[in-house]
Each structure stands twice: as structure tokens, then as C-alpha cells.
């Protein structure tokens, strides 16, 4: 290392669920190399390929260096560079005009998890401005795992259900249900703990339409399953447990309500159809004997962790799958126990560690003046992305139809933070129509993304290397990280809080920001348990020492009188009164298998016979990193198709194919594989939408084919879509 070179620690947390240490080498104000965690005292938080590629992202030639104003039609990509003064003056004038003409509800802010930080955070900073102006429309709902949230809020009354991953080492059996953490990360060391569990002799079973890298590395068995039928398999497993009297009846009696109603359903007393493995076999494609043995093994292994991946939950009636998984975890008595699992969604933030949240946000008058929306759980607002009156999956429709369509307002102004919604909201062509209907769109970006191409103003924002902040890694070990400003902002890009402050001043909000970033960091850390902030800042991070794995609901199981569950009954609700009260069609108060739309029995399957799933690739974090040369060259974007389905269509490996349904069409290369269930095709989500003159997407954006219809319990069914594939 040369004399004038410094090595500075920071944290990468770009929307993969992980948080990994990066050590940036800096010379003459330029990052020259990146290393990762070399801590010899604690478990290391080693970064993946994405984290290692940051240098090509920071210094990418396409990095936005000036505010960009749209000068051509939306989507044309015609922009001109303007000054910050002009950009912020224009935005301030538009904001004022929209609020005065249509009221504050016409302003929509969509923020996703693309860039997690405490201070330059996505929603607080902008939310504060909008609320100071009188409020705004804040959509609720998470694309990633709304079905899982619904299940947890109804079964447990809360959504913080994830064990720290070190607890995998205490499991006798791990069932990976649609879970591929080798690609999706979901906590930095998830794959590493799974490997250690395997090496200690834990049996691991993978249920998945695909044979993934995770299945190949961790699992002893692979059981393919048809997409959208997971609830049927789980319910048949419950049937086996009851028929063979394998359930932990004492646990059910003590900690749950509604098991008898569920039992009636699975035994066929309700509808005359016993939900046996033989019933589930033609639905799921899993042999009845396999389902039976899986049920027996899960009931026998104590403790056993059923890890319910969130991909299977992103299907039509995906909340039923999550509720069924939780019910099975209760039937096997694995809830609240080390080495077990409550059967909830495979990832969620841990309520471990604590710090402040910066400036206070005034109440949102728009939310407050509208009654609680029908169909939304009363406790949904207590979990992340829970406030608001419009379900995000309805937002495109709401923008298009407005008040005339029965929505609370006409929407005119959209501010986008840390997100690429044109690409990532379902049904891209409909999202394009919605964007075209808006008066004004602002997005904060590093690049001219598909969303940015449809915006009126694109504000160049900094990466976390270019500003001071503090954040937490929810990974194991849970850590605090000080993100020191390591380099100057690239081009004229500005930090999010900096341009927000400038905008607030133009809007007459004089007391918006009275501190420097460093002062804010100190204020945020005042509410943390860190005693020596100076030492923490010097070191750059702090790993929280836990006395053992964090096990949600341990207190409820050990002393249920003192610690009831957060449900109305105080117990795990297999039968949910809250769901019954919502009175939604196809959303029963006990978990049931409901035949999905666009499944293989849908009449539409005659025209579009293949089930599309839209998975995650290791070389992107959603749409982030898709343009990084080091990552692009590793794996070409392609649709995976089984040898059988490819042969029937005369498709050979590498052929360009047209993938289409009534919602849209795209052209991508085909990858002919033995690792996917026949009848299923997989197009990884996150590739950048790039329509040609005929509206055919040449970028391979999976949402061109997905449907913007949320499941009754809120699950976004991005893995429920029928398509056809043909040689292009």
C-alpha cells in the first residue's frame, strides 16, 4: 500500500437483505480497490460480487453528473443537462401548482429499498417535505413479501419473525421451500450458515421448481413443485400429520386457536374433499409418497426449520402458502424454539439494535383524512411500508383511473426515491400508460434507468461512498456501520439530504434542516446503545454481540401467560378473526389451497401453456448493477426453459426467443436446461426495459409479462403468469 493511500471501512446494503463490509482503498480522492471484512475476532460480513463491483458503478461512464430535464416524449431518452437551480425551481413550482390545484393527495411518493441508510434514507427526508406541505399519497405494501406479511400479521400479530441465521446450526432438518439464498443473499451469511449446518450433518431438503445453486450446494434432496401450488403441498402434509397423529397436539392446544376448523378442512369435512397427498399430487406435481414422507420427516425431526421462501409467496393467493407454512410450523411445535422456525417469510428485518431516526415528520394529513381502506389489515400500519391508503399494486390503476375509478384522488405528481418502478411494478406496459398520464415525475438516480427515461426531472444523487451516514446491517452478526464520506460526489451529483434541504428552502420550509450530516449522525447515534461514538466512527463499524441466536416468540412459548402473542386472541391464529372480519373474496380465515388464476388449469393455458417465474440472479440486486460490465459478462440474460419444452418448440440453447402473452412481448436468448420443471420457464427479474419501435421489449424485463392484480391478502403475484415461448 502506497504512502498516500487510505483504507476506509463502509457498508454495502443495496437491497439484497444483506449488509456487508467494504474496505475502500482511496488515493488522491479516488477509490482504487475494494476489499471486504477481514475481522479476526468475529464472524466476517464478506461482500458478494455485487459489493465487489462498486468501483465500476461509482465511476461508470453513464453515471449521471448533472440534473437532467426531459425535452422529448416520455421514454424517448431525450434530456438536456440543466443547473440545480433550474431543476429545483421547476420542481418547487410544479409541487406548488399541484398542491394548489388538486390538493396534496395528488402528490405520490414511491420509495423502495434500493439504498438503505439512516440519514439519506429513502422516505423520511422527502416525506417530511411533503407532510410540511400538507401531506401526500403514500402507497402501502411491499412487492417482495406482502403475502408473508399478511400471514404473519394474522397468525402472530407481528412481522418480526426471522431467527438470526446462526440458529440454522441448531436445526436437525432444514426445509428450503422456494429459497435460493446463494443468489438472493437475504442476510450476508445465510449461505455460509447453511453450509456449516450441512457440514455438521443437518439434513436439508429443497422444494423448488428449479434446481438452483443453493439446492446443488446445500440440499440432500430436490423436490420439484409446480409454481403457485405450494399451499396444496403444505396442506397435504398437514393431512398426513393428522391422519398419522404426528402433530404436536399439546403445542396446538396451548398456543393456537382454530386448529379444529383447519382439521375439518384438510379432512374434507367442510367440502367433501380430503386434502390427501393423492389429492395434492396432480396439483403440485409432487408424488404422493414424497409428500407423505416429507410430512413424516418434518414431524419427526426436532427441531426443524421450515424456511418459507418469499418467491412462492409472490403468487396468486400467495398468502395462503405463507399461512399454511406457519400452520405446519405450529403443528410440529417448532415455533419459538432454537433450531426451529415459525414458518414465516424467509427474510425480514430483525428488531435487534436501535438507533434514532433523524428529524421528526409531521402527521400526513392525506392519510389522516381518509378512513381506513377496506381490505387492509388493521395492524398492517405497524410493519414496514405499512402506512398509507393506496395499495402499491393498485397504484398504476389508481393513476390511470383516479377518482372516476373510485380511488381517493386524481394523481398528478410522482416523486421516486431509490426505486425503478417502471421496470419493477407489474405489467410494464400498463405502468407506461400510467406514467404517461402524470403531470410531473421526479426521480433521484445514479443512471438513466428505464424509469428515469419516463421522468420529467432526473436528479443525480450520490452513492454512499460520497456522503456521511450511518446504517445497520441486519445480517448475522447484526452490525452498526458508520459510512464516512470517502470521496467527493461524482460530477454535480448531490447528497439526498442536501438537495432536499435546498428544495425545502425554495418551498418556504425554513426550519427543515438545521444540522450538518455529521451532527445528524451523532443525534441518530444518541439513541443507540453505542457508548463510545468516537471509537465507533474511527473503526467504522460495530458488531453486536449476542449471547445466542435471536429466536422470535421464545418468550411467548416459555411464558405464554406473561407474553401473549400479538393477535386478538393472544394465541397463534390458525383461524383468524381479523381475516374473517375483512370479508374478502377468496381469503378464508383458515389457510386453504385456492386454484390460482393463470395456473395450468386456467383455460388461458391453451393459448399460453407455460408458467413464468421471475427469479433473482446473483449478478443484480433487482435492477441495480445490471449495467456493471464486470457483472454483465458473467451471465447473459436469458430465459431458462426445460429441454422437453424447448424440443417441442424447436428451440436450441442460445436461440433468440419471443416470450409473450396478452400483456406484452419480449425477445431474449433461451437457455435450455435440465434444471427446471417442464411447463415452467424462468426469466430473472431486474433486466432493464428497452422497447423497440413495435413495443417489443429487447431488454428482457420480466414485468412486461406480469399482471398488476394483487392477491386478496396482498401478495404480489409476480410468479403467476402464463406465457408462450417461440423462436424469434
Amino acid at each position, binding site marked *: 500500500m502506497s504512502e498516500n493511500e487510505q483504507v476506509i471501512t463502509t457498508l454495502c446494503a443495496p437491497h439484497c437483505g444483506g449488509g456487508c463490509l467494504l474496505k475502500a482503498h482511496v488515493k488522491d480522492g479516488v477509490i482504487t480497490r475494494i*476489499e471486504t471484512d*477481514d475481522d479476526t475476532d468475529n464472524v466476517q460480513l464478506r*461482500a458478494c460480487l455485487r459489493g465487489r463491483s462498486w468501483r465500476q458503478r461509482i465511476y461508470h461512464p453513464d453515471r449521471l453528473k448533472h440534473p437532467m430535464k426531459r425535452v422529448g416524449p416520455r421514454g424517448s431518452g431525450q434530456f438536456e443537462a440543466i443547473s440545480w437551480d433550474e431543476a429545483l425551481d421547476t420542481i418547487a413550482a410544479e409541487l406548488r401548482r399541484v398542491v394548489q390545484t388538486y390538493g396534496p393527495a395528488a402528490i405520490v411518493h414511491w420509495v423502495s429499498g434500493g439504498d438503505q441508510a439512516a440519514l439519506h434514507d429513502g422516505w423520511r427526508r422527502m416525506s417530511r417535505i411533503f407532510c410540511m406541505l400538507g401531506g401526500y399519497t403514500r402507497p402501502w405494501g411491499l412487492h417482495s413479501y406482502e403475502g408473508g406479511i399478511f400471514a404473519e400479521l394474522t397468525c402472530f400479530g407481528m412481522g418480526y419473525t426471522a431467527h438470526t441465521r446462526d440458529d440454522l446450526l441448531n436445526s436437525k432438518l432444514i426445509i428450503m421451500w422456494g429459497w435460493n439464498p446463494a443468489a438472493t443473499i437475504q442476510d450476508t451469511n445465510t449461505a455460509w450458515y447453511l453450509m456449516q449446518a450441512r457440514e455438521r450433518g443437518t439434513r436439508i431438503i429443497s422444494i423448488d421448481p428449479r434446481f438452483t445453486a443453493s439446492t446443488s450446494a446445500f440440499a440432500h*434432496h430436490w423436490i420439484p413443485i409446480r409454481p403457485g401450488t405450494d399451499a396444496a403441498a403444505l396442506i397435504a402434509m398437514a393431512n398426513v400429520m393428522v391422519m398419522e397423529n404426528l402433530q404436536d397436539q399439546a403445542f396446538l392446544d396451548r398456543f393456537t386457536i382454530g386448529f379444529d376448523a383447519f382439521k375439518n378442512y384438510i379432512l374434507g369435512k367442510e367440502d367433501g374433499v380430503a386434502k390427501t397427498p393423492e389429492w395434492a399430487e396432480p396439483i403440485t406435481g409432487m408424488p404422493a409418497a414424497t409428500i407423505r414422507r416429507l410430512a413424516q420427516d418434518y414431524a419427526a425431526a426436532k427441531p426443524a426449520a421450515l424456511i418459507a421462501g418469499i418467491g412462492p409467496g409472490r403468487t396468486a393467493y400467495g398468502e395462503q402458502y405463507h399461512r399454511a407454512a406457519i400452520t405446519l410450523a405450529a403443528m410440529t411445535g417448532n415455533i419459538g424454539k432454537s433450531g426451529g422456525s415459525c414458518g414465516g417469510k424467509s427474510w425480514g428485518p430483525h428488531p435487534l439494535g436501535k438507533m434514532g431516526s433523524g428529524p421528526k415528520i409531521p402527521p400526513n394529513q392525506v392519510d389522516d383524512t381518509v378512513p381506513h381502506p377496506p381490505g387492509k389489515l388493521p395492524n398492517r400500519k405497524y410493519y414496514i411500508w405499512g402506512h398509507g391508503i393506496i395499495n402499491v399494486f393498485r397504484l398504476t390503476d389508481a393513476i390511470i383511473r383516479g377518482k372516476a375509478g373510485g380511488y381517493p384522488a386524481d394523481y398528478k405528481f410522482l416523486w421516486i426515491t431509490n426505486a425503478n418502478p417502471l421496470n419493477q411494478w407489474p405489467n410494464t406496459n400498463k405502468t407506461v400508460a400510467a406514467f404517461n398520464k402524470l403531470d410531473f415525475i421526479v426521480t433521484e438516480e445514479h443512471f438513466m434507468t428505464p424509469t428515469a427515461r419516463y421522468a420529467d426531472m432526473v436528479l443525480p444523487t450520490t452513492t454512499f461512498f460520497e456522503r456521511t451516514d450511518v446504517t445497520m446491517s441486519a445480517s448475522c452478526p447484526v452490525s452498526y456501520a458508520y459510512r464516512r464520506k470517502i470521496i467527493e460526489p461524482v460530477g454535480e451529483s448531490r447528497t439526498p439530504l442536501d438537495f432536499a434541504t435546498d428544495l425545502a428552502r425554495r418551498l418556504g420550509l425554513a426550519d427543515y434542516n438545521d444540522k450538518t450530516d455529521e451532527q445528524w449522525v451523532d443525534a441518530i447515534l444518541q439513541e443507540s446503545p453505542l457508548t463510545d461514538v468516537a471509537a465507533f466512527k474511527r473503526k467504522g463499524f460495530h458488531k453486536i454481540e449476542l449471547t445466542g441466536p435471536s429466536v422470535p416468540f421464545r418468550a411467548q412459548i416459555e411464558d405464554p401467560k406473561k407474553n401473549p402473542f400479538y393477535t386478538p386472541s393472544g394465541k397463534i391464529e390458525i383461524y383468524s378473526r381479523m381475516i374473517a372480519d375483512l370479508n374478502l373474496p377468496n381469503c378464508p380465515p383458515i389457510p386453504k389451497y385456492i386454484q390460482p388464476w393463470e395456473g395450468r388449469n386456467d383455460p388461458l393455458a391453451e393459448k399460453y401453456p407455460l408458467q413464468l417465474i421471475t427469479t433473482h440472479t446473483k449478478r443484480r440486486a433487482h435492477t441495480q448493477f445490471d449495467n456493471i460490465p464486470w457483472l454483465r459478462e458473467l451471465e447473459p440474460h436469458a430465459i431458462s426453459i426445460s*429441454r422437453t419444452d424447448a424440443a417441442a418448440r424447436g428451440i436450441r440453447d442460445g436461440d433468440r426467443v419471443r416470450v409473450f402473452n396478452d400483456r406484452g412481448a419480449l425477445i431474449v436468448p433461451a437457455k435450455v436446461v435440465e434444471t427446471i*420443471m417442464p411447463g415452467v420457464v424462468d426469466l430473472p427479474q431486474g433486466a432493464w426495459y428497452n422497447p423497440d419501435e413495435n413495443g417489443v421489449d429487447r431488454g428482457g424485463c420480466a414485468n412486461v409479462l406480469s399482471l398488476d392484480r394483487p392477491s386478496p391478502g396482498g401478495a404480489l403475484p409476480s410468479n403467476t403468469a402464463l406465457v408462450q415461448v417461440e423462436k424469434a
Partner: protein
Amino acid sequence: MQLAFYFDQTRCTGCYTCVVACKDWHDIPAGPASWMRVETIERGKYPHPFMAFSCTPCYHCAEPACVPACPANAISKREQDGIVVVDRDACLGKDKCQLCLEACPYRAPQFGAEDNAKMQKCDFCIDRWAEGKQPICVAGCPMRALDAGPITKMESRYGKVREAEGIRYDEGLRPSLVCKPRRQVYLASY
């Protein structure tokens, strides 16, 4: 002394972190040159596929084929640690030669996209050993599937298996590698 790699194929998930970390550390642009290469090996038929990943830097062979193959004497093997290095100034370039690449069964010699690119290859992170650090691929592997050190130490720690899926041991060249291969472990039916 001979430095050697250890590769635990049972742990590798094919995540490519080693590839990207190597390109970042050695400042190699995207393109044909990659000192570390990860390949996916797939066999079998649905529903009984087999998948493994091979991880191939330069194995710094005891008897490297590239050294005698080079007409310009640009490649040499260091006495002190057995690392095979290239003198890029002496290399004739890919438009004129490539005999080293033809000689190497592991295709370790790499050439960039530029005109008459000079050969480049994994140097086992000579600069990092000098600072007491392991090679960047080893230090960064999220699955802790890699190790490196004197071959005697690697052998005493991990045994003497030298082959894995996609990696064949060449008796004549004696690559400096110890492996733990992934075997077909998925049961045919459950």
C-alpha cells in the same frame, strides 16, 4: 517452497465473487482477460440433474507447460514461492504467439481485448503475500471455499486429493492444487 491453492468444491455456489474481486484488485477491465474463472458443470437429466462449479486461477504448476512453450522466455517460475510470473514487456503478444495458452490445459494465460495484447495471468497476488495477506480471491470468498499457502501445509490440512468436477490433475505439470470435489449426493428419489 511452493505456494498452492485449496478449493473446496462442496462449498462453492458459483457466486463469482472471486472473479470480480480479482478484477477489481488487479484492475482488469471487463473483457476476455480474467485471471480467475468460474464455470458451471451440469450433468444428468431432469429430475436428477447434477451441478457443480469449478474455480480456476493459475495453479502455478510444479512443471509449468507455459514456461518452456514461450519462445521469448517471458514466463518464469519464482524460486522462493513457485509463483509463475510473466514479463509482459518480453511477451510477443496474442497476434504473434499464444503458444503459452495452447500449452496450458487450464487456459490460465489470458489476453485482453487490445491489439496484440500481452499475456497476463494470475500472479497469486504476490503483492498481498508481501503484506501478509492471502490472495484477494481467498480473502473474499463468501463461502470460505478457498485457501492458499505452502503446498505442504495445504496437504496436511486438507489431504492430497487433486481433482474435482471440471478440474483434472495433469501428472506431468503437477498443478499446485488441493481439492475437495463435489460428488453426486442428491438422492434419486425422496
